[in-house]
């Protein structure tokens, strides 16, 4: 994997002519940006735009990688739903990207990644026998298998229970270190712990939020984290989506 590039996005997105957001976003290279906002504010739309996915609207503007190379094929994606294929074993799910591209399956690498997310014993099982947290760990291994310098996470932990979510967050922060990460979330606590940069989307605009100076991954009871979290929550409650 080469040094991860940053990403710059500028432009307006409209749905049926109605402005969803007028954005200026910079994702610093090799760092975590948390994009925070209420439901319907357009968080996922920004992520989907850059991934080249259907957004149900029209974007006028531009986005590019700071190293000027095309973005295509350099972003891996993890969604809220684990999207594991039920008929494949866990390890086959991890290498599904290789299958879909018609590449050679690198089973060795997949095994190593499963070990890294703590699922070695489940490699040959079907996803239906896994718990929600384990399924999301398998999805994380699949994201890592793509080995891309940029990773987009669309609320990947929001359906998990609090304990599992904290475990998953710590695991993700560890295994995705040094990549350019965009984490879309509606959870201020998640943003306050993870982010090198917090970007809030409200009132159809994006602005950066002051981040605690302590290094990530910040402790749950770290005072700077807690106050950042509280202020974020206040802000989100005050704005209309």
């Amino acid at each position: 994997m080469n040094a991860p590039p940053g990403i710059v996005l500028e432009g307006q997105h409209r749905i049926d002519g109605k402005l969803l957001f007028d954005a200026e976003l910079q994702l610093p290279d090799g760092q975590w940006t948390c994009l925070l906002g209420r439901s319907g504010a357009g968080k996922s739309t920004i992520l989907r735009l850059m991934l080249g996915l259907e957004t149900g609207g029209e974007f006028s503007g531009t986005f590019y990688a700071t190293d000027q190379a095309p973005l295509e094929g350099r972003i891996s994606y993890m969604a809220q739903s684990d999207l594991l294929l039920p008929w494949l074993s866990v390890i086959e799910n991890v290498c599904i990207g290789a299958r879909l591209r018609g590449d050679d399956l690198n089973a060795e690498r997949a095994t190593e990644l499963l070990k890294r997310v703590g699922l070695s014993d489940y490699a040959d099982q079907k996803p239906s026998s896994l718990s929600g947290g384990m399924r999301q760990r398998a999805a994380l291994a699949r994201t890592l298998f793509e080995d891309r310098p940029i990773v987009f996470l669309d609320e990947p932990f929001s359906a998990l229970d609090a304990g599992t979510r904290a475990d998953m967050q710590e695991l993700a922060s560890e295994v995705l270190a040094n990549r350019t990460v965009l984490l879309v979330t509606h959870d201020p606590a998640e943003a306050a712990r993870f982010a090198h940069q917090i970007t809030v989307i409200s009132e159809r605009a994006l602005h950066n939020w002051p981040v605690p100076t302590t290094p990530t991954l910040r402790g749950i009871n770290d005072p700077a984290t807690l106050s950042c979290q509280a202020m974020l929550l206040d802000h989100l409650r005050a704005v209309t989506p």
Partner: protein
Amino acid sequence: MKFRDTIIALLIGIGIWQALVVLTNAPHFILPSPWRVAKAAFESRVVIADNAWVTITEVLIGLVIGTVLGVSTAVQLALSKTAERLMLPILVFTQAVPVFALAPLLTLWFGYGIWSKIIMAVLIIYFPVTSAFHDGLTRIDKGYRDLSISMSAGKLNFMRHIQIPNALPSLGTGLRLAAVYAPIGAVIGEWVGASKGLGYLMLLANGRAKIDLMFASLIVLACITVLLHIAVGMLANRLTRYAQGITPDRK
């Protein structure tokens, strides 16, 4: 338990039949008793088996060809939006033509042999298989599509590794319908013009007032259809279990 219930239901059915014979006092060339039918079935077992074999062959070949055609059409439609736009209305329109009405034409074109019956069976199952499978191929979690786009997947690989396995339960539904329709197609083909098959035997027996033989043929036909239905049902369940990742040895 289920087997016992089936036997009981069967005995009740035969009981009602026998009661009808006794109560209506119908002559045996109108409504033969169960015993008479059993006797006719035994006496004509070779003739029935010969003709049943022909019908079974027609049905099975028809099922295979119809399924292959239906599956490939569905894949084609799901791959190409243009094909979908052009073909779907045509397919639906052809369904407005009662396939039975085509039987004389098929006999004219393909003769009295088994091929006109096979084609009849193919025509009758082609649409249910195509439409069920096409439905399964296109009704897919949008997330899978997003994921595969982000993974730079090719269209064909997406079809092969995600869409098709995901649609197997729907194919199972189509096959279940096909298993019921295919014998109907074959028998209608035989009624219109044939020198072999259970449909032919029934007409022949009817013409010669051998109603007991006709009943025997009818019952054999029903048994074949039920067995086929069970076999295809088992296959369909397997497809569904596979797609849901449920292995048979683990509950």
